[in-house]
Each structure stands twice: as C-alpha cells, then as structure tokens.
C-alpha cells in the first residue's frame, strides 16, 4: 500500500523551495491535514495561515503571485473550489496568475466526515474555467510530480489530492508531463481510462477481465486539462470500447471530458463509472467505494456490458 497523495504536498514544497523556486503556501487552518505544516515548519516566512477564510486564502495567494511568488493554496477540495469559486475564476484565472490550488480530501474517500465534506464536483468546477489546468494524481509519486509540474509551469493549476493511502501505480521518480495520459497496461479489447484512486481499481479490473479472456488497456488520465486526446483516440480506435472511472460525479468530470472529445473524434460505446449524481455519505473509505460502485468488480461489470 502506498502513501496518501496529500502527503506529497508539504514535502514537495520544501524540495521546490530548496531548489530555489520561490514557492509560498497559503492555508486556511488545515495545515496538519493538508501537510502544508511540513512546509511551514521549514519555511515559516513563506507560509501564510489565513484562518478559516477560504475566499481570502485564494486571493491572498493571488496577491502573492502578483508579487512574483509561486503561490500554492491548501484547505479541502470542497472549500477551495466551492466556497472560493468566484475568487478562483475572477481573480486567479481571469488574471492568469501563478496560483496553484492543491487541496486535499477530494472525493468520497474522505470517509466518515460524510457528504458535506466529500467533494465530487471539483474536477467539473475547475476544468470549465478558461486557463485552468487540472491534474489528478493517482498515487504519491504522481502527486509529487503534479505539484512539481504545477510549480514550474506558469499559470493557474488545480491539483486534486486525497486523504487516504493510494496504492502505488507509478515508479519512484515518475515525472508528469502537461497534457499527457499514461498507458499503464496495453490491451486490445477495451480501454479503461481512469484518474486518481480509480487508476488502481482499473488495473485490478483489467486482471478480472483478463480472466475472461478480455484484453483491457488501462490509461492513467492524470492530466484532465489539457486532455491527451491523441493517446485516448489511439486507444479507443484500437479497442472500440471505453469505460471511464473516476472518484467524482459522472457529470462534467473526467468521463465527461473524454466523452466530449471522443464524441467528435472517435465515438465508441462507453460506460462511465463515478458518482451517479448523488452526494456521498458517512462510512469508511473502502465501504464507500463499494457502496457507490467505484471498485474493480463494478468496472469489470461495466466493461462486460460493452461485450453483450
């Protein structure tokens, strides 16, 4: 079992600062949960806690970016994107600033805190803003790479981090390229396109499909915007079938983003795994993944429908 993607946040900021990048972090009273406290411990003069004030958090980061800093923000996904949406849209993105949102506790794997804290619309909210880039790392290595990519690429970024341990799917030292998806397993019969914790579920589903003699190609869509259209088109051109898998609403998330482009470029029979336009609920992360149909057996079943 790997580490949680959020654990990469503060530690990677420390590395970036040591390498001479002028990173700062703005937090809204959740530094221990998001791990920005790790950065604050080493670079207290570069850390700004705004208290419980997420709108101010985003715009203070915007001001720091105007002053020439690479400004990361913390808090939880539900607050950073929902409560501060106008700040992200009208100040950060409209001005095209070097503000990098990397909130943690995205999706239903937040667990017992319940639906109020389980953000399942953040990919949707962020990807529709002009100029925003959206990264959803699948594991700790990818999270390190995503934070590094966001820090070293000009302009606004959204990096979606999670609370619970994510199984490793990428090797140590994995590097993320902007606008690139990663084929983790080649196959010929069906494409499983996934992001975040669903990448590991898709890999396990591919094993289940292999037992039925079905060859599944698994793609980690770590960068949802800009989307790697070429890799996706090449894959579904070959397989002719697609299942999208995300720990997010099926509305306007990664599956929608892929369907938008494939419906024009290469339409194929598709199933979308995700939250079916419902809020989450309290429970343990693993229970919730099963309850809402996000685990490998559900991906397997959705893929099998495409062979009926």
């Amino acid at each position, binding site marked *: 079992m790997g580490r949680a993607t959020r654990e990469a946040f503060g530690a990677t900021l420390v590395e970036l600062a040591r390498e001479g990048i002028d990173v*700062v972090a703005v937090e809204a009273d959740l530094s221990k949960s998001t791990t920005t406290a790790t950065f604050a411990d080493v670079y207290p003069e570069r850390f*700004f806690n*705004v208290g419980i004030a997420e709108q*101010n958090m*985003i*715009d203070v980061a*915007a001001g720091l*970016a105007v002053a020439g800093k690479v400004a990361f923000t913390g808090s939880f996904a539900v607050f950073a994107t929902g409560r501060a949406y106008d*700040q992200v849209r009208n*100040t950060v993105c409209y001005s095209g600033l070097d503000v990098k949102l990397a909130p943690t506790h995205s999706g239903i794997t937040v667990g017992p805190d319940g639906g109020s804290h389980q953000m399942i619309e953040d990919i949707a909210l962020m990807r529709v803003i002009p100029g925003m880039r959206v990264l959803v790392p699948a594991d700790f290595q990818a999270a390190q790479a995503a934070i590094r990519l966001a820090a070293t690429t000009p302009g606004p970024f959204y990096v979606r981090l999670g609370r619970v341990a994510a199984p490793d799917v990428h090797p140590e030292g994995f590097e993320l390229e902007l606008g690139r998806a990663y084929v983790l397993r080649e196959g010929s019969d069906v494409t499983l396109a996934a992001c975040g914790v669903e990448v590991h579920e898709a890999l396990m589903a591919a094993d289940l499909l292999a037992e039925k003699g079905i060859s599944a190609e698994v793609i980690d869509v770590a960068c949802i915007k800009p989307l790697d259209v070429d890799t996706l088109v090449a894959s579904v051109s070959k397989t002719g079938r697609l299942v999208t898998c995300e720990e997010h609403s099926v509305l306007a998330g990664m599956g929608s983003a892929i369907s938008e482009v494939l419906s024009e470029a290469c339409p194929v029979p598709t199933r979308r795994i995700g939250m079916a336009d419902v809020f989450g609920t309290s429970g343990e992360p693993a229970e919730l993944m099963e309850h809402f149909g996000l685990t490998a057996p559900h991906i397997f079943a959705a893929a099998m429908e495409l062979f009926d």
Partner: protein
Amino acid sequence: MTPGFDAVQVRTTAVGMRRDIIEMVAAAGSGHPGGSLSAVDIVATLYFGAVLRHDPTDPGWVDRDRFILSKGHAAPVLYAALAEAGYFGRDHLATLRRLGSILQGHPDSKKTPGVEVSTGSLGQGLSVASGLAAGLRTSPDDDRTVYCLMGDGELQEGQVWEAAMFAAHHGLENLVAIVDDNGLQIDGACTEVMCVGNIASKFAAFGWKTFEVDGHDVSALYATLSAAREHAGSPAVVVAKTVKGKGVSFMENNANWHGKAPSAEEREAALAELSVIEGGA
C-alpha cells in the same frame, strides 16, 4: 521621477479625468459614471499628486508602488488616470467596452498596461492587496506600498473583513486601503440597503490605523494618504467621504447614475459643467 505635490495641477488633471469619464462612458453607451466620478480626486491625488510611485514608461518597474481598484466597475476613472499618465494612448478611451478594446468593462490585467490585477467581482481587492503587500515586504526598509481602493457598498462583502483580519494579523504596514465613501449603491443608500455601520470604527476594531478625509479635497487627500503611507506597525485605511457623481450636478448623490451612460444631451450638459477648475486656479 515623481514631482512634488501641486494642488492646482492635481485639480486641473481631475477635471480632465472627469471629462474623460463622461466622454468615454457616453461613447461606450454603458458603464458606471457615478462611482467613477466620486473616486476621481482620490485617484488623481494618487497618480498625479506625488503619492503613488510609478513609471508609465515601465509598467513592470519592480520598485513601483501598486494600486488595486477593488471597485472594478469604476474602471473609467482608472483608465482616465492611466491614459493621462501615458500608460497607453488617449485614443483608446473612445474604445471602452468595444469588441477588441484594451479597455474592458472591468479592469483586465491581461489587456491593459498599468492594471496590476483584474477586478470587478467586488470584495476581493483587499485580499489581493494584502497578499501583494505580504509578498513585497522583503526587508524592513522596503517601502513599496500597496494602495487598494474600495467602495463603501463593497464593504458589505464578507471577504473584505477576512482580509482586514489578515492584514492586521500580519502587520502589513505597507498596505493602505482607501474607501470611496459615497454613500450610495445600485439599489439606493448604503445605509438603507445594508448598513455597514461606522466604517472607520470597524477597521479600527480589526487593528487598523484609520484616517478620515474629505475625498474631494486634494490637499487633504495628499496629506492623509502620505500619513497613511508613513504609518508603521499596522495597515492603514483612509475613509474618504465623497459624493457619488461628483462634478456633474444632475448625477450628484443620485444612485440612478451608478451604472447608466449619459445621452448625447446629458453628455454636453455634463461637459459644460466640467469646463472650469474646481476651487479656481
């Protein structure tokens, strides 16, 4: 490069800015004259009264002070100042709000030289100014100052007070907030729509140094803004009492002129009133 303060020169420039505002909003056929006119003397004192350290030939000059127009709908007053200062040619003023113009309906830092950050969604400027002030304060003798102009109605946005808390908590003495206290908002008098109470007292309660001034007396504005800049130990706010629509009799103290362009006749009537220098020269 900034000359000393000259009240007559600032007043003269302010009249020209008021004329520009009337002309550009009339040409655009839409826009916000009321809150632009109320802020003219404040903005003129900043840009042409030796308060704001800036260089129109080098908008990115690192040692400049920064000005953020949080009440972004008053874009015409900013554009009038930036054109007068020479950030762009005056011919652009007639293109306000037109397709392809560098002068958007609300300030757009990607399109307009001299605009530090895009504004228009109210209540955000003070947060941005606070972050900017924190980011610029690299050493104790770094005196680059961030000025942020807000409307009094804008203070109804809760985020303003999140920023007020933050700036005081971090002792951002290089931050000067200015409130264009014209008493009116779109739906009427601020006190009737949603009364904020005593503005200076509220900022004082958050730990700010407060100043109150006649927002149309450029000499008083110069003295007060200079004192606010020099104040150490905490951020400072200048509550400038103003008249919405100042300088055009039929627009003064009338909320209907918040967001309405003058007709051709009204334009002529306004310009006729704006042909003399207020207070004599």
